[in-house]
């Protein structure tokens, strides 16, 4: 394996931070988040996973789509595309898998989402293999692995004295140019795995659409948006025009899109007031079906990467693995 020492890695990351935006897990007032760092010294290396996924880097919580300038009857539109290269370091395989799932929708399904695609092209992913799965992790049950290098450009794995470095893509190779690596015999240690969770067949879901299970589970649901927002693959958004300060006497607005969640009560309410998902059970069912049935049907890839964030963060113990166990049970 090719290995870099801790110091060598730190020096390389410091120089990267000078050239591009370097994003890595950082302690923000006691909360671990992927955030821009000015130097490698700010990076946290010992963690299960940050509270939020890296989807923010491609699909920000608030994104400007257009700037609109109105002068009486004249309107001018300005498309505002994201600029700037970024390198995200410390990406867990489950988060990288999440980006791949979003790629399937935003890039590989027509029409291409211009904004997502631009950020994606401008980003290099440096993954960090997990030495062990977290208590709520289940990536191996949904086709992933704690050391899966498939979806990153460079894969790091902690070894004695430093990190094993693997270039996965051409982009990754290009990023690694100039980083001195040592040839060391051996392989990175295999990660410690959890008990697998049964993954129901995709076709197992439709027959259970009308089960009482959904309503029962949803009774305690708060209809907040935590699960959707911490999830690496949830991508529902809202679009609206909002005012900007006037300029030269002209009214200015920005058309923005922001994160939204199907768990919200008014999410699906149509003009006139009709709401086909007025009940919590209908909404929660939609979220799980979207993950395991709709998204695969619509764009061809699964929308759960087994990261376990929703399990960690749900205040009322709505547990996606409990749903999977139940579906597997009733479809036996």
């Amino acid at each position, binding site marked *: 394996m090719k290995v870099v020492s801790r110091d060598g890695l730190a020096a390389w990351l410091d120089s990267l931070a000078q050239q591009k935006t370097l994003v890595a897990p950082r302690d923000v007032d006691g909360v671990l988040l992927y955030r821009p760092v000015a130097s490698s010294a700010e990076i946290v290396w010992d963690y299960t996973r940050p509270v939020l996924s890296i989807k923010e880097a491609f699909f920000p919580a608030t994104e400007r789509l257009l700037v*609109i300038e109105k002068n009486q009857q004249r309107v001018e539109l300005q498309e505002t595309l994201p600029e700037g290269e970024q390198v995200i370091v410390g990406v867990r395989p489950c988060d990288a898998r999440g980006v791949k799932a979003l790629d399937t929708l935003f890039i590989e399904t027509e029409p291409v989402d211009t*904004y997502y695609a631009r950020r994606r092209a401008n980003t290099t992913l440096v993954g960090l293999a997990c030495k062990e799965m977290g208590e709520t992790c289940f990536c191996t049950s949904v086709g992933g692995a704690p050391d899966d290098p498939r979806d990153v450009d460079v894969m790091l794995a902690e070894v004695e004295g430093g990190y094993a470095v693997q270039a996965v893509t051409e982009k990754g190779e290009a990023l690694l140019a100039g980083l001195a690596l040592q040839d060391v015999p051996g392989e990175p240690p295999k990660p410690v795995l959890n008990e697998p969770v049964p993954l129901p067949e995709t076709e197992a879901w439709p027959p259970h659409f009308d089960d009482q299970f959904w309503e029962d589970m949803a009774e305690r649901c708060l209809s907040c948006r935590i699960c959707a927002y911490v999830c690496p693959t949830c991508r*529902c958004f809202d679009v*609206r025009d909002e005012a900007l300060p006037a300029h030269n006497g002209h009214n200015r607005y920005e058309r923005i899109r922001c994160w939204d969640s199907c768990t919200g009560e008014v999410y*699906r309410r*149509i003009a006139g007031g009709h709401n086909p998902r007025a009940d919590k059970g209908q909404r929660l069912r939609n979220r799980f079906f979207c993950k395991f049935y709709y998204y695969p049907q619509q764009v061809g890839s699964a929308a759960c990467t087994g990261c376990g964030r929703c399990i960690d963060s749900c205040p009322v113990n709505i547990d996606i693995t409990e749903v999977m166990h139940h579906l597997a049970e009733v479809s036996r």
Partner: protein
Amino acid sequence: MTSLNGSNGMAPYLGKLVVVKDMAPEIKLFGVELLNGGNARFADYKPGQFAFVSAFGAGEAPFGIASSPQRGEVLEFAVQRLGSVTTELHEMGEGDTVGVRGPLGNHFPMDAFKGKDLVVLGGGIGGAPLRPVLQTVLDNRADYGHLTILWAARHPSLLIFRDEYESWRSAPDTELHLTVDEPDAGWEHDVGLSTTLLEKVAPSPKDAIAITCGPPVMIYYADKTFQALGFTPEQSYVTLEARMHCGIGKCGRCNLGDKLICMDGPVFSMAEVGNLMESFL
């Protein structure tokens, strides 16, 4: 710089309001003349397709295109004032600039309808996306069979496209029936639900196609009535409404089960709707 070459799915074309007409209390008809190359994009839209209309400053919302390209380049939309975007639109006048994104969605299979009798049932503002179907039939009269139009509203003042009823009625092989929930003095036509009218008119299902649009509850009961009249699910078409924010299959909001109303619809046969996992009700 603007990007109106269609490469950005979220960037609208600009359009000038050339028609702003009151059709009913809180309902206006807007005619939009596209600018900056939008005409090429909209040269060949089909009945049933929709577009996002921007009231810049408030946002954009999806509306069924209420006109047919055979009748000219002006895109028409019937808009009921219900929320922030439609309120902003209603404040606008001729000469003002809007945005238009589209044409989006699938369409009524007008070619497959050729030679058949058509029964078109429009409830309230739901009649708007059906008007291009009527226009296409009337403009290509020989291609289609008998046309039965059932048009309903809560009150006579809420009936839309009233100034066109004469031209519909007087077209060859065409009949028009009107009904309202609540008549006014001088109302000479039927009173009652659209389904009651449908039962009374009792169109034959032989070689016929039913097309319905209106509030979800109305679509539901109209379908039951069509079934009772002998229409198969394959013979019945609807156009469904959903809350949308992108219209291009990204924002995730408009799904009914695994179908996206914006991409797989908004036009569905009842055979498809019946197989939808999730009810639109």
